[in-house]
C-alpha cells in the first residue's frame, strides 16, 4: 500500500503504545487516539468512527508490524 506521513505516524504511535513498558501505556494510548481523531477530523470524514478506521487499517498495520519485528531481529543479530 502506498503510504503517507500521517498514516506512518498513526502506525508508529500504535506500535509505541503496544510495546511500551506497562507504566507508559495510558499516555501512549492517548497519543495514538489523538492521531486517529486528528486524521478523521482533517479528512472531515464523518461517516466513520475510530474503531472503523482501525478496522480499515488491520492489514496495513500487520505489514508494518512484520517489518518492525524483522528490523528488530536484524538489529539483535548484528549485536550478537
Amino acid at each position, binding site marked *: *500500500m*502506498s*503510504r*503517507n506521513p*500521517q*498514516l506512518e505516524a498513526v502506525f508508529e504511535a500504535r506500535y509505541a*503504545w*503496544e510495546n511500551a513498558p*506497562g*507504566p*507508559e*501505556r*495510558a499516555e*501512549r*494510548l492517548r497519543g495514538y487516539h489523538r492521531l486517529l481523531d486528528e*486524521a*478523521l477530523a482533517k*479528512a472531515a*470524514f464523518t*461517516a*466513520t468512527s475510530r*474503531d*472503523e*478506521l*482501525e*478496522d*480499515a*487499517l*488491520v*492489514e*496495513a498495520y*500487520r505489514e508494518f*508490524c*512484520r517489518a518492525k*519485528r*524483522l528490523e528488530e531481529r536484524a538489529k539483535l543479530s548484528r549485536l550478537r
Partner: protein
Amino acid sequence: MAEVLDPPRWQAVGLVIDQNQRDFLAGRYSLAEDLLAWFKAADLFRETQDERMILREPTSDDLRQHKTWVASLIAEGERLVTEALARGGLAEGTARFKLADVEATLEILYLAQREWHGPKMPKTRQQEILKAVFNVEEPAT
C-alpha cells in the same frame, strides 16, 4: 523440526495465565504484584502472537489458541481492575503503574480480539475509508 519446537510458546502463555489465576484466587501476593504478573503474561501473549501470527501465516491452531488466551487475559485483567476499584484504587506507592495503564493494556487485548476474531470489514469499505482519510489506495486483492 520447527513445528515440533514451536507449539510450547502457546503452552507457556497458558501455563503463566493459569498460574497467575491460581495465585490471585489463593491471595498469595499483593494486588500490585498480581497486576504486574498480569502485565507480564499479556506481554508474553503479544510476543507469541507476533512470532506465530505476524511473522508467519497463522495456522488454525494458532487462531484457536489466540482466541482462548486473549479471552482469558481480558477476563483476568477486568477482574483485577474490579478488585482494585473495590479497594478504592491502587494504593499510592505500591506500583510504578496506574490503573489507567492496566486499562490501556486491556485495550490492546480487546483490539487484538476484535481484529483477529471479529467480523471482517468488506474490502470496498476499507478502500473507501483509506482513500477518504489518508488518500492512499490499496489493491483490491
